[in-house]
């Protein structure tokens, strides 16, 4: 099981890293959005917030790569003609899919590295992390929780023929309601309730608390773990249902 998991994750990581589209959304797009935000913060003369922006823009990239990668994961397997093979294999389908969704969030790490590097090089962003150890834990915790959220997306979007429509729709709203660049205090109160159910909200809290100080990193990491477990449980149920229905109706390869 460990070998299957590791081999799947590594394979998809390499595969996605070779895709120009994923290079665009996990490296170039976050750097462009980080630049826009840097200029906006600069001209608004808000002091001491450039590292805040770089981290937020980096997490935007993790969300984008998870959303587009995981949201379309099953559809792509269909188009490539590999879906029947992986479903028919003796290994549980869930164990094949989780490494893929985790790989989509893992390549999002390029965006964190990219925005920090870009910010340091061109905007003089100080890379002084207050709690490096907490950051070293918060980053993988965030990536894993987003990867498991990706599993939930994959298992939900599969019900719809045009999964990419949802991917196109959900990019900005989640950037907005999880407080990646805009504090939730500026948004209507009900948005906070939505943000609690979304892993990027807790991920950015953990990463910012670790990098900028202020406390609360461990509790946010705990929430990432909890949400990740919930996403996994829901994703497993939905995936089982999808597999059962697809077998019954013989619709596995139909797009």
């Amino acid at each position: 099981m460990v070998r299957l998991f590791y081999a799947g994750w590594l394979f998809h990581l390499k595969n996605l890293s070779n895709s120009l589209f994923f290079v665009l959304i996990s490296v170039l797009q976050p750097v462009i959005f980080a630049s826009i935000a840097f200029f906006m913060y600069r001209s608004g003369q808000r002091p001491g917030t450039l590292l805040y922006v770089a981290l937020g823009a980096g997490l935007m990239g993790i969300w984008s790569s998870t959303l587009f990668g995981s949201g379309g994961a099953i559809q792509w397997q269909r188009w490539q003609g590999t879906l029947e093979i992986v479903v028919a294999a003796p290994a549980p389908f869930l164990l094949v899919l989780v490494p893929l969704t985790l790989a989509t969030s893992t390549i999002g790490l390029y965006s964190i590295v990219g925005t920090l590097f870009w910010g340091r090089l061109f905007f003089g962003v100080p890379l002084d992390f207050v709690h490096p150890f907490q950051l070293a834990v918060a980053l993988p915790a965030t990536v894993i929780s987003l990867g498991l959220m990706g599993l939930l997306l994959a298992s939900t979007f599969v019900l719809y023929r045009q999964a990419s429509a949802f991917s196109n729709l959900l990019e900005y709203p989640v950037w907005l309601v999880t407080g990646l660049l805009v504090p939730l205090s500026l948004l209507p109160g009900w948005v906070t309730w939505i943000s609690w159910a979304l892993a990027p909200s807790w991920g950015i809290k953990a990463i910012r608390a670790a990098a900028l100080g202020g406390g609360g990193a461990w509790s946010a990491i705990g929430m990432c773990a909890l949400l990740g477990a919930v996403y996994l449980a829901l994703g497993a149920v939905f995936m089982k249902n999808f597999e059962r229905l697809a077998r019954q109706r013989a619709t596995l390869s139909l797009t």
Partner: protein
Amino acid sequence: MTAAVRVFFVGGLISYRALFNWLRPGMYVTTMLGSPLFQILFFTYLGRFTRNENDAFFIVGNAVQVAAMSSIYGMVMGIANERQFGTLSPLLATPANRLALFLGRALPYIANGLVVSAFGFAVSWALLGFSLDAGDVPALALIVLVTTVACTALGMLIGSIGLRARDVFFAANLVYFLMLLFCGVNVSLDDLPGWMAAIGRGLPLTHGIQAARRVAAGASLGDVGGLVVTEALIGLAYAVAGYALFRLFEGEGRRRASLETF
């Protein structure tokens, strides 16, 4: 002449229905309306936090910019998808007037861009309290039209490159995102480094957004006439370059028998 007109209008409409990937209602609503709506909300709220400009700056900038979604992505699909779908060779084997063939397919995307932009302004009015004098609407509509045409010309240029390049949608995505940065959509050109502002002034959208902001602030069409003419001329330059590349790659494709090879 009649055949060219038919190719322009009927051919343009058929190509739109056949090649525009986002035409299905589910896809259209989420991608062409939902995404721009949240883009406007995202940048307006970000602007409220950074306090570098007022709401109208972001609303007008993004509501004009979202027209580029149809203009660039759509136009790229309208040209490059002929190659992707394997219909390029039969199309170019016809004696159809090339200029009519090329320009006719732009028309639906221009109309589409106007719809998306109008939707952007409407939701900004409904959700963000954006207001506009009724008398300013015709001038603003004309500016958005000129800007959308100019952006479509850029889309034609990228689409024409798609007759040769392997992955033109990467270029379309990259250009679309870079326009958010370079064209003064969310950051005033004065706040950008000189070289970025200079590139921005050479792109469609920049002058159109400046004109739209001034009209939204109460200026007349005459006051922004120079900006509108500049935007139109920039669009014309990109359209000429796009058509030249289209003909060049058609000729090259015939000579090398590589029209549909990747």
